[in-house]
């Protein structure tokens, strides 16, 4: 087949697809819990926090992923810490941190790189970055598998979780770190400003269909992977940038799942 041949002979496209597959799957899986925790928009806002990190990394000529992750890590720590010591609602904290980051990011990122930082490009992923992205995606999914049941019990009833000696604060911090990793990875696959969608949409779509938590998690993972791979393939075919098409692919899947939702008893 022509497409298969193209994928196998074109190294750049091959790396893009593998990275998209794994990062899409990890984002979808993590997103399933974010949507239930009502943190969907936090993921979106956090993606903007990556920008100053990328900018500074480009200035210092280090790997932009490292910069993005460092910025996200500090951002999530701030959100977590401020939430614990004040009664300011999380969304307000996130709103403030996110707009400040975007402002700082726009100031520090050198102008030629600004476009790349904002809009990312999966076709520019090196083999080493690709291996790193795959390994981290696997790590994120494994860590999430280990904590997801405890987290969900905390969502159903914080009292039940506390009564079973589950440390919700620690779990939330761990979860936010996983979110930081996934968002930093996703910045490469889709664009910074669109990363939120890779986390939210697959989960929202599978929530339309799934009745059990296990189905919901697996389905979010699969739909995330399909969105990323589908979007990247369509981009290559139509000669567009992959990011927006990944988002559009996931949105199409979301629309399709509505049929199941309305058909459900």
């Amino acid at each position, binding site marked *: 087949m022509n497409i298969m041949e193209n994928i196998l002979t074109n190294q750049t496209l091959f790396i893009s697809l593998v990275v998209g597959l794994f990062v899409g799957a990890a984002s979808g899986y993590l997103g399933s819990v974010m949507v239930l925790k009502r943190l969907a928009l936090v993921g979106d806002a956090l993606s903007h926090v990556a920008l100053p990190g990328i900018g500074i990394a480009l200035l210092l000529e280090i790997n932009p992923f490292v910069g993005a992750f460092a910025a996200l890590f500090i951002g999530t720590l701030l959100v977590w810490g401020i939430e614990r010591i004040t009664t300011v609602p999380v969304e307000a904290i996130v709103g403030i941190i996110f707009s400040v980051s975007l402002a700082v990011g726009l100031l520090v990122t050198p102008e030629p790189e600004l476009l790349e930082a904002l809009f990312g490009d999966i076709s520019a992923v090196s083999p080493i970055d690709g291996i790193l992205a795959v390994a981290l995606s696997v790590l994120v999914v494994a860590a999430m598998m280990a904590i997801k049941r405890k987290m969900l019990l905390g969502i*159903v009833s914080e009292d039940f979780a506390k009564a079973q000696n589950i440390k919700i604060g620690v779990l939330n911090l761990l979860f936010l770190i996983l979110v930081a990793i996934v968002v930093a990875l996703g910045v490469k696959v889709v664009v910074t400003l669109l990363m939120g969608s890779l986390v939210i949409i697959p989960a929202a779509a599978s929530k339309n269909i799934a009745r059990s938590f296990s*189905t919901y998690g697996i389905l979010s993972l699969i739909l995330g992977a399909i969105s990323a791979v589908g979007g990247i393939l369509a981009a290559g075919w139509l000669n567009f940038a992959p990011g927006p098409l990944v988002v559009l692919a996931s949105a199409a899947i979301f629309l399709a799942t509505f049929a199941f939702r309305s058909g459900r008893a």
Partner: protein
Amino acid sequence: MTVPILSVKNLNVRFDSKSIIENLSFDIQKGEVMAIIGPNGAGKTVLFRALLGLIPSDGRIEWPKNIKIGYVPQKLAVDEDLPLSVMEFLRFKGASDEEIYEALEAVGFLKGHDFLRSRLGNVSGGEFQRIMIAYALINHPDILLFDEPTAGVDIGGEETIYSLLERLHQKENLTILLITHDLNIIYRYAKKALCLNREKVCFGVPKEVLSPEILEKLYGAKIGVYEHNGEHTH
């Protein structure tokens, strides 16, 4: 005198500067059913949460070592579209499926029942309450804390929530702490009553301590459930 299963001494709970429970002391013996009554905002649920160690408190709360406490909260807001099946929820307790089926059987659900696969947010009120009781019963607790069972929910057959609790009490010698407003239930099932309105208003055998004067003091107005049907003041 045996050692009580729960001993509370000079318990104080404050939220910020507001005092919710003041100088509360009482004991419960193993196998007793105790009702906690009081007006809304009297601190009944807060007492439960303090006993469970969910909120900070001053004073002494003494449980025997390794006590297993089952807790049935008043209500949980579970979204209708939360993708979580009944069985998955019950597995959160970390017990084997056999133990879960045993607890389900105790509340009258049969193994393989179809609804175990439905979403937790989609079951009826009566089913939900039974699931919560089953959740509390997994691991065979020594004591059950039950925050306001809903009277009149259909739990199948002739059984009510109260006859179910009575059966568990008889069979497993379960100690039960119950928050309720229903005086008939208290007279019928509870061996002791604790009247709470921030502080202890009464404590003892229901028929002896729940006098019209006490109830009036507790609820701040004469209530028409007792022998002396006084005028209602609203």
